[in-house]
Structures are given as C-alpha cells and as structure tokens.
C-alpha cells in the first residue's frame, strides 16, 4: 500500500544507522551512505508523486506496541543524558532531564487517563514539503559529509576520528526528523523531538574540545527546556481535552487549546533558536560544517518552526499570537543587525538562519492564510540556500584555512566555481528575483493586511540583511593579489552536491509556482478555505527579471576585449605592481581593504541584551495571554 512509504521513511534511516554502527571500512561506509541517501531522496519523491491524489492520509499504526517501545527508548535516552550530565557536572541539565522524565512518567502512569490516539501517523501536503526537504537536502548533505569528514580529520589529527558515530547519528537524526513531521500523536512527536535534541548534542560535541562540549551542553539545556515545555503542553492538553492528536487539536476551539499550543510553540522556539534562546545555535557552529548545514539550518531548526506553523491557525486573531509574531519579528530584526558586525562566516550564516526562522515564526504568529503561505515558501527557499551556503563555507574553510570573511577576498579568482555557487546562494537569500525575495514580498503582503505596524520589524531587518550579504559578495568578487588554484583537489562528491544545490536554488525560482500550486496552496485551502498566490502578471514580471539576471553570468563568456587595463587610482602613488603603492617612506605596500562591521552599533553584547529583554517580555506576555483566555 502506498501508505507504507511513511513508516519506511522513518525506519529505513534507522536501519541504515544500525548497519553503519558496525561498518568501519571507509569504502563500504561511503557506498552505503551514497545509496541510502539516494533511496531516502527517492522515498520522499515517491511520497510526493504517489500522494498526489490524497489531500491527507491518517494511519493508526500499531499504537500499543510502538508506544511501549517509545516509552522504553525515552527512558534509555533520559538515562544516557543523566549519566553524561552527571559525568560532566551539569546540574541544570540533570534537573531538566529529571523534570522531563517526571512529566513523562506522570502522563503515562499516574494521570489516570488512557492516552490512546486514533491516528498516530499522518501526512498532508505540508508534510510532503518537509519530507522533500529532509530527504533531498539531508541526503545531499550526508554525501557531502563523506568527503568533508575525511579531509577534516586529515587537517585535525588531534581530533579522535569518530566518523562512524557521526554517520550513525546523522541517519538516526534523519529518521527522527521524518518521525516529527509524520507524527499525528503528540507524544510520538515529543519522542522524536527529544531524539533530535540528543543527535544535536552528540554532533555539536563531536570534536570533544572543551569549547565543543560546553556548547553541546548549552544546546542540550536549552532544548531540554523546550522539551519540558513540550511535555507540559501535552499534559495540559490531555487534562483539558483528553486528546493527544494534532488533527483533533486543530479542530477544537481556540480558547481550549491555546495554552498547550503556546507551550509547544515555546518548545518550537527553543528548537529554532529564537530570541532569547539563540545562543545555542551560535555555539553550535563549532561543529563540523555539514552538521551546521544539516541540523542547524536546513532541517532540525526547521522542525521547530514547522510545529509553530502547523498551529498557525490557532494563533490567528489572538493576543498570544501577536506575542508570538513579535518574538519572531524581533528575532528577525535583531539577528539581522547583529550579523552585520560578525566577520566569522559561520556566525553570519547562523545569525541569518536565526533571523529567517524568526520571519517564519512571525508568519505563524499572524496566522492568516497569506502568512502561512508566505511562511511555507520561506521554509523551502531558506532550506536550500542556507544548506548551499554552509556547505560552500565548509569547502572554503578547508581550502583557505580560515572562516574569516576578510580572508575570502578575491575568492572568485582563487576558487571560481565555489565562489560562483556561493554568490548564487547569497543571491538566493535576499535578492530579487530569487526565492527569499518572493517570500519577503509575500510576508509584506500578509502583514499589511493583518498588522501593518509589525511590518516595521521586517522592513528594518531586511535592509540589514541586504547590507551584510552584499558586503560579503563584494569581498568575494574584489581581487587583490589572490592565490590561485585553491580549488584543485576538491572532491567530486562535494562539487556534485554543491552543484545540485545551486541548481535547486535557481530552479526553484522557476518552479516555485508549481510547488505552490501543487502543495502549498492546497494545504492552505484545507485550513482556511482560501489561499494566496502570486497572480500571473507578477509571475511573468518575476520571470522576466530572472531572465535578465541570468544574462549576467552569460555576459562573462565574451567580455573585456575593448577595454584597456590600468591601475586603480591611488593618488598617483601606484608602485610597480597593480596592487601596491609607495608609502611616504618610499616603500612598496600592498593594498588592504576591510569591510565595515560597526561593532559599536551592532555588536553582539549590546544587541543580545536588548533582544533578550524584549523577547523575554513577549514570552511572558504570550504565556499570560494564553492563560487568561
């Protein structure tokens, strides 16, 4: 039966993980990862194609046995976390694990109510979109990791090679992600949620350095706190409405479910590193770059906003929803401003991720049909572009030995192909007519109808994003004394993955109306009865723009013939080489140009303090409004 694809997608990566735990040979592992990634991607596509006729499907699955297995696994995971927190002397983590355990025990054994779900698994168009992201992008990143990890360990002989654990964890993670998006039973979703927390913890601490371990525990603590909110939300839901399924929740009246939804959304906010929880994502950047790409930009953090977006309809026209939107908007604005002051490439990408997730949360908080349409569009485009950018930065970092943007000067000559793909990724993040721009257009449209004042947050934030992206792009294309040939020796696998992601970025700009029509709009209609779309006139204009932009790389085929190359203007002090000048002592000096970072204005400390204060106030507001109703 077609529906078997769903348990397949959840269990297959798990099985592969189990096999990988016993494989030590590089070649075997490599082959296995490549084949599995392809199968998973194919599985997601199968879901897309096969699920065309269905709007949604619900499956009961054998709940009794599976629920028991899940319970046992939860105890095991909690046990492991307790052990490791105890060993590393992290009292807060210990407390949080125990609190979660207590909540689970309370719910399962003592609450006196049989928690039986009618349908445990389900899929609808939104899940299909998420499945495609996890399957295709997750698969690509796994393949990329093969080459990356090998070189990583060559460059870092001091790090113990635990690649086996790495790949096992990645596949367990993929399995858990599928679990989250296919779960209708909130308890199952909670379980898979915790698994992703565990995977993130293991992967952040991969290098076992002091910094890595500290950051892993930070991530663990914050996500455990989120998990605690999650389970408390479920408890309240069970107590007040005796249900535990998502579909049933969405059909109940708002005032009844607002509090549990708010608590679960709080969990979503911790998972997607919204303010004031953003520190863990920044700290997670110590992990190897494919981890940052997979967990901390494309998939795991998307699970956080996915959950909030699912409940968007509940937030519509509520003050709690307004608070959620404010948190998202503030996160977007402040994270974008902070990114201006960062010169570490991965930190810029991390803050940009936090910011874009904030935009999705903003959409979810508004909760109108336009906002949800915009939010899903944002998720798709961001997942692709960000994965591309992180992977490119990973390659660049390994070749030039630095994560500093200032060291990436002239990359278009040093590493032309990678630099070109980076430029595509960056364009995809903010430039018309690429994806994110379309999403931003949609967000603005949604906001002007619902709450124009909130648009201020988006407007200022998007100017800030423009600044730091173009700054970086400029650094890549300007050329002063570049080293050449840095791209040689780049693994074919890595290049393949980057090329596919670049192709997807560009392809999505053409194909997104199809995706919208086939997946996003039907989903929005099922919830709201109407949907938003971009009308034909504007679509044509976007395509014309895309065509014009496409002419730009084409114009490089035959250029620069009728021009005369001279030195730049340096007040006449040009010395013998193109990029040197004579200083006042008569010595030759090389030109140096560094970007503006404005740490005095947009420095982390100042901004994060502001963000923490405002968002904490909003969270308090959110919870209060949910309680009052």
């Amino acid at each position, binding site marked *: 039966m077609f529906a078997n694809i769903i348990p397949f997608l959840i269990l297959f990566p798990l099985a592969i993980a189990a096999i990988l735990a016993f494989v030590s040979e590089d070649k075997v592992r490599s082959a296995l990862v490549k084949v599995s990634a392809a199968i998973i991607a194919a599985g997601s596509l199968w879901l897309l194609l096969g699920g065309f006729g269905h709007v949604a499907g619900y499956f009961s699955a054998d709940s009794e046995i599976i629920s028991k297995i899940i319970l046992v696994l939860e105890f095991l995971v909690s046990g492991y976390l307790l052990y490791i927190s105890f060993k590393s002397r992290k009292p807060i983590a210990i407390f949080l694990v125990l609190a979660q355990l207590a909540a689970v025990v309370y719910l399962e054994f003592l609450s006196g109510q049989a928690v039986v779900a009618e349908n445990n698994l389900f899929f609808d168009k939104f899940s299909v979109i998420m499945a495609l992201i996890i399957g295709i992008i997750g698969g690509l990143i796994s393949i990329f990791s093969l080459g990356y990890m090998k070189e990583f360990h060559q460059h870092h002989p001091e790090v113990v090679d635990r690649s086996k654990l790495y790949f096992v964890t990645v596949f367990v993670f993929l399995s858990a992600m599928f679990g989250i998006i296919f779960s209708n039973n909130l308890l199952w979703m909670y379980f898979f949620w915790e698994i992703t927390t565990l995977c993130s913890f293991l992967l952040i601490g991969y290098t076992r350095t002091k910094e890595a371990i500290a950051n892993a525990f930070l991530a663990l603590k914050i996500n455990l706190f989120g998990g605690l909110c999650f389970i408390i939300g479920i408890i309240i839901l069970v107590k007040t409405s005796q249900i535990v399924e998502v579909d049933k929740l969405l059909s109940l009246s708002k005032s009844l479910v607002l509090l549990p939804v708010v608590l679960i959304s709080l969990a979503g906010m911790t998972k997607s590193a919204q303010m004031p929880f953003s520190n863990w994502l920044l700290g997670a950047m110590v992990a190897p770059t494919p981890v940052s790409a997979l967990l901390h930009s494309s998939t795991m953090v998307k699970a956080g906003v996915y959950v909030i977006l699912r409940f968007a309809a509940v937030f519509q026209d509520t003050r709690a929803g307004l608070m959620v939107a404010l948190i998202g908007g503030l996160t977007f604005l402040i994270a974008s401003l902070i990114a201006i002051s960062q010169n570490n490439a991965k930190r810029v990408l991390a803050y940009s991720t936090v910011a874009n997730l904030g935009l999705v949360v903003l959409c979810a908080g508004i909760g109108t049909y336009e906002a949800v349409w915009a939010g899903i569009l944002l998720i798709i485009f961001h997942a692709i572009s960000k994965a591309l950018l992180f992977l490119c930065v990973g390659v660049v970092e390994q070749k030039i030995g630095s994560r500093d943007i200032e060291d990436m000067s002239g990359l278009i000559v040093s590493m032309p192909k990678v630099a070109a793909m980076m430029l595509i990724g960056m364009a995809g993040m903010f430039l018309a007519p690429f994806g994110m721009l379309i999403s931003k257009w949609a967000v603005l449209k949604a906001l002007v109808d619902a709450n124009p004042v909130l648009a201020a947050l988006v407007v200022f934030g998007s100017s800030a994003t423009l600044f730091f992206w173009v700054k970086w792009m400029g650094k890549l294309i300007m050329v002063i004394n570049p080293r050449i040939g840095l791209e040689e020796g780049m693994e074919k696998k890595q290049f393949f993955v980057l090329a596919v992601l670049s192709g997807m970025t560009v392809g999505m700009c053409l194909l997104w109306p199809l995706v919208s029509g086939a997946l996003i709009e039907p989903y929005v209609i099922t919830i709201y009865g109407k949907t938003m779309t971009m009308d034909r006139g504007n679509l044509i204009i976007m395509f014309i723009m895309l065509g014009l932009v496409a002419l730009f790389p084409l114009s490089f085929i035959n250029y620069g*013939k*009728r*021009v*005369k*190359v*001279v*030195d730049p*203007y340096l*007040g*006449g*002090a*040009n010395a*013998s080489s193109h990029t040197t000048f*004579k200083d006042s002592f008569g010595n030759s000096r090389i030109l140096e140009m560094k970007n503006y970072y404005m740490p005095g204005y947009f420095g982390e400390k100042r901004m994060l303090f502001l963000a923490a204060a405002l968002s904490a106030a909003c969270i308090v507001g959110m919870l209060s409004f949910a309680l009052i109703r």
Partner: protein
Amino acid sequence: MPIKKSPWLLHYDASSCNGCDIEVLACLTPLYDVERFGIINTGNPKHADILLITGSINEQNRPVVRNLYHQMPDPKVVVAVGICATSGGIFADCYNVIGGVDKLLPVDVYVFGCAARPESIIDGVVKALDCLQEKQDKRRQVIAKIKDVQVEQATIADAQEILEVQKLSYRSEAEIYNDYSLAPLIQTYQELMDDFKKQIFLKITVEGQIIGSVRGYESEGTCYISRLFTHPSFHNFGLGSKLINAIEQTFPKSKKFEVFTWHQSKRNIYFYQTNGYKTTKTVKVSDQISNVYLEKPGQDAAHYL
C-alpha cells in the same frame, strides 16, 4: 557632439608654491566661473580630459605625474600652468628639479605667468580644448581606418619614426620594472640603422603615421622575432596579431620562431601564447628582470615530423 563642449579637468600641483593653484581655483569662483564652459574639476584621472599641472617636475613627483597621465583615458591634453610648469621657472637650477612638465609628458598648451592670471589660465584651457578636439578627430579617423590596415615592409626612411614609436611603446614596460634603461628605450639611431642591415623590418601605417612594427631575422633555421610593438593608443585592435602573422609569413621556411619578453609582462606572454607560442625557458639577466623565451614551430616543421 563635439568633445570640447565638456572638458573635465584634473588639477595637479607638481611642486608649485600654490600661487598658480590658487589662481586655478579662482577660475571656479563666481568672478571667472569656468563652469560656463562645462568645465568640472574632477579629482580623478579616469574621469578627466585635461591635465592641468602647476609647478615643476622633480624626482618625487615624476612617477606620480606619469601614473596620473597614464590613468587618463584618451583623448587627453596637458596644460602646463605657470612658468615653473613650463620650464622650471626660478627653481630650474635646483638640484632636485628636473624641469618643466615637457621633460616628462607631451605638453599641449603652455600658460606663462608667475602666478598665471585666471584670464590666462582660462585662455590656455580654451586653447587646450581645441587641441583636444583635434586629437579626438585624428583618433577617430585612425580608428575608422584601422580595420583595413596592412602590414608592409619598412624602409630605412622609416627608421626615425620607428625608433620614436618604439620608445613610446616600451615606456609602459619600463614602468613595470622601474627600469628606464631597458634596451629598446636606449637604442640609438645608429644601432637601429645597423639592425636594418641585418633584419627585416615590418610596419603598419595609418594616415601616414606608423603605429606598429616588428623585426626579425633567420639564423640556422630559427627565426628570431623581436621588438614587436604597437602605439599605446592603438592597443586591442588586433594589430599585434597582424604583425606577428606577417613576420612569420616573411620567413616561411623557418623551423621555429623564437621571441622573448620579460617575466612580469604578463600581457605580452598571454599575447604570444594565444598566437601559438609556448614558454620554453626563463633566464635571469639581473636582480629585477628575467627574460622569458617563447617558441612556436614553423610551418615546415610539420614536414619534418
């Protein structure tokens, strides 16, 4: 529309006492108002048509003035303002003063005075505008004809002109290595006459002006090509390729063709490579310069394989 309607200036103080500079700036004031002529004082050589120099040339500002001049796009004129710029003025005998601007650059208009009065300066600039227009018209004529130029054999009567254009063209090489004693720049007329006896000279002429030349001779089956140059104002018109093809066809029976250039002359190396030459060896001739030799097999070489 005529180019002289919109002259943009670059004003440079070479070693002036600022007297002439103040008068130049006075021209911008309401009393004289040169903007009536569309004159704008841009500080940027790439935007300028007229280089207005005050003060004389000394060792320190020589490379600077040269850099500024070369960063100005054609057509351009140089106006020497004040007696110091004309001849060195009262500082002409100083140990560090080389002399007026014409010791370095081709000057089009001299404005006398110490300090030159604004009226004279404006007169000078207006005259320079006519020079500018002339240069532009000439340049256009040449560019229009340039596609149809042919490479011809040069005679001894062309020697003088070839030497002049040679020195002009190799200036840019001298600038790269900061060595103005490179062989092409110090070759004397007599040496050139001797070369004429031993080598075949080819030239490209347009409107009666020689704008490119090359020479070569054959020895033991190898054709040695040297001194291939084109007038700096006429690069990127394919003249170099025409010259090298012509000289190769002048020695059809050579087994190989050899050229050499200097190690940092990347454009030259690239040029030869696109015309089928491959680098064979690099020989150091001094601390600053190495010769790079490139070779190309002759047409007949195919027969010997």
